[in-house]
């Protein structure tokens, strides 16, 4: 393959992915209320950023979304890591196929079905045992954990499948208890997978709208729900401003986490080599 072809494809591919986002950022500085009209005389302006800071509804929804996403990611990572460990390390135990199928089912389940079934479950539970009392933060988080769990499990499981379990065996041979092996050997090794699982769950929860809509209660509207219901009358440009800020934050986070993971990966390889050299 020649270099020019490759470069053209790269530019086209990147353009396809990023031009829509760039245009949104550009239009967040547009003075006109209409998205398609570029008001050249008065642009660029920061007025939509100012309007955004005044919009208590959107800011409140954004804060709620961040809290839900963080709680979801943490919960899903704990459960997903346990499930991933069980599937990758515990051999062919009884019910393994069942567990494997059940944890990954939400990957292929239509969101409407997941949302509706969880809603019905919550309503039935409330009638039967009085919990959860009403719907809101807690129910949205639980519902999000349900579908994010599958993604974390898959990520952790494939990471575990990809590394040499002789490291764990060596630790066991040297007298470490299984719990110590987990905390000192396994966990540090799969940490990159856990971090990316956490980020993945955070993102999935952050932009979910269908499931949230089903299980949300009074005064618990997440940001995507607010944006989506505003679309009825056309998105106002302060949403562009908000989205631009989010793109900025996400970009910073992604760059940091990539750098961190790359450094860790190199360190791990170095350590493995040293261990091999010492052992050989």
């Amino acid at each position: 393959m020649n270099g020019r072809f490759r470069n053209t494809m790269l530019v086209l591919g990147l353009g396809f992915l990023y031009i829509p986002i760039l245009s949104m950022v550009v239009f967040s500085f547009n003075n006109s209320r209409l998205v398609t009209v570029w008001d050249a005389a008065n642009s660029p302006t920061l007025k939509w950023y100012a309007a955004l800071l005044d919009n208590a509804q959107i800011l409140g929804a954004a804060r709620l979304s961040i809290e839900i996403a963080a709680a979801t990611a943490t919960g899903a990572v704990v459960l997903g890591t346990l499930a991933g460990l069980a599937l990758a390390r515990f051999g062919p135990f009884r019910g393994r196929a069942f567990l494997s199928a059940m944890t990954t089912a939400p990957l292929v389940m239509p969101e409407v079905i997941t949302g509706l079934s969880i809603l019905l479950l919550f309503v039935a539970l409330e009638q039967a045992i009085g919990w959860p009392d009403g719907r809101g933060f807690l129910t949205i988080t639980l519902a999000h954990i349900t579908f994010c769990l599958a993604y974390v499990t898959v990520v952790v499981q494939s990471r575990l499948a990809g590394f040499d379990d002789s490291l764990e065996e060596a630790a066991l041979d040297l007298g470490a208890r299984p719990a110590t092996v987990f905390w000192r050997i396994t966990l540090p090794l799969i940490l990159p997978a856990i971090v990316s699982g956490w980020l993945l769950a955070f993102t999935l929860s952050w932009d979910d709208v269908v499931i949230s809509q089903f299980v949300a209660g009074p005064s618990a509207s997440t940001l995507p729900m607010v944006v989506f219901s505003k679309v009825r009358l056309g998105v106002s440009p302060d949403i562009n401003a908000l989205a631009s800020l989010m793109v900025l934050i996400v970009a910073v986070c992604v760059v940091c986490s990539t750098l961190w993971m790359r450094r860790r990966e190199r360190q791990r390889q170095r350590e493995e080599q040293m261990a091999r050299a010492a052992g050989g």
Partner: protein
Amino acid sequence: MINVPVRAAAAVLIAFTLAACSGKPAADKSAEATANAPEEKVLNVYNWSDYIEPGVIAAFTKETGIKVNYDVFDSNEMLETKLLAGNTGYDLVVPSGSFLYRQIKAGVHSTLDKSQLSNLGNADPAIAGRVAKAFDTDNAHSVNYMWGTSGVGYNVKKIKERMPNAPVDSFAMFYDPKIVSKFADCGVMLLDAPSEVLGTVLIYLGKDANSEKPEDLAAAEKVLLSVRKYIRNFNSSAYIEALANGEACLALGWSGDVLQAKSRAESAKNGVEISYNVPKEGAVMFFDQLAIPKDAKHPKNAHLFINYLLRADVAAKNSNFIQYANGNAASKSMIDASVTGNPNVYPSEAMMQKLVPDLPESPEFNRLLTRSWTRVKTGQ
């Protein structure tokens, strides 16, 4: 985007609730038991997005000390799904007429305590009468909030360029292939609301808008298929933005939404002039109704809020802001003349006679309609 699956979910829930609706007396009793206890100063409202004057809620809180949690939805289907699942946590919801009818049948809404609604006298008897006849017998469960029509929204300049003598006050704009074909290049949009659009076609054909005869449906489908290739898409919300920025020049839309497109284009000063007409053949009318779910935890506060919305000055504020006609006769003198004087928002008496509500259809007809609608949308 999510409407179709949500619609399906709502249908499942309706079947479910209708089958089980007699099995819920326990919940009703507990609601009655708490009816006399003082309520905490909270009210949970679930309304359409951008459907209230922003200052109204703050003013209500200031007057009563009741904190309002105001959430919004963007489709009747979503509201219905939540209502039928039960325990929504909402004290006041705003379904449209035919949805309200089904929800009342499923036992979702409580009867209003009219002794708590001292401002009910402001309500327009003509509107309340129509609602009582079509959806809510004796207005026992609901009070009208806003009403409107679906009609012709158009870009004045673009239509004139293409057809100087276009019949902009007629459904022929959409349903006569010879006419609509002239506007295909500048963007024609129809609502994605099967029973309402069917109603408009039937009116155009001179038939009863709520006819459930299979041959009328077939005739309407034939009309829609004959103009299908000139219609850019079917959508119930995107046309506001599309009209305002000139991407579409003709839309079958809801009155207030088209007028919001008009004011949006005016404030953008992009040279787009939008106008709305109630077709001379008559039109389909919709009603958005305030109702209190049976399992509401704060029914007294909900009554207080309905009563507040019924105040003439408050209703006028809302109508001025969202540009829909309200069902409040006393407020009419306080609404801007640009709204009340617009015969396309407040139609003349003769026109009112030609407006028909979009009645709920039977499940059998609904199936036929859905199938026919799919054929129209896919153009087969």
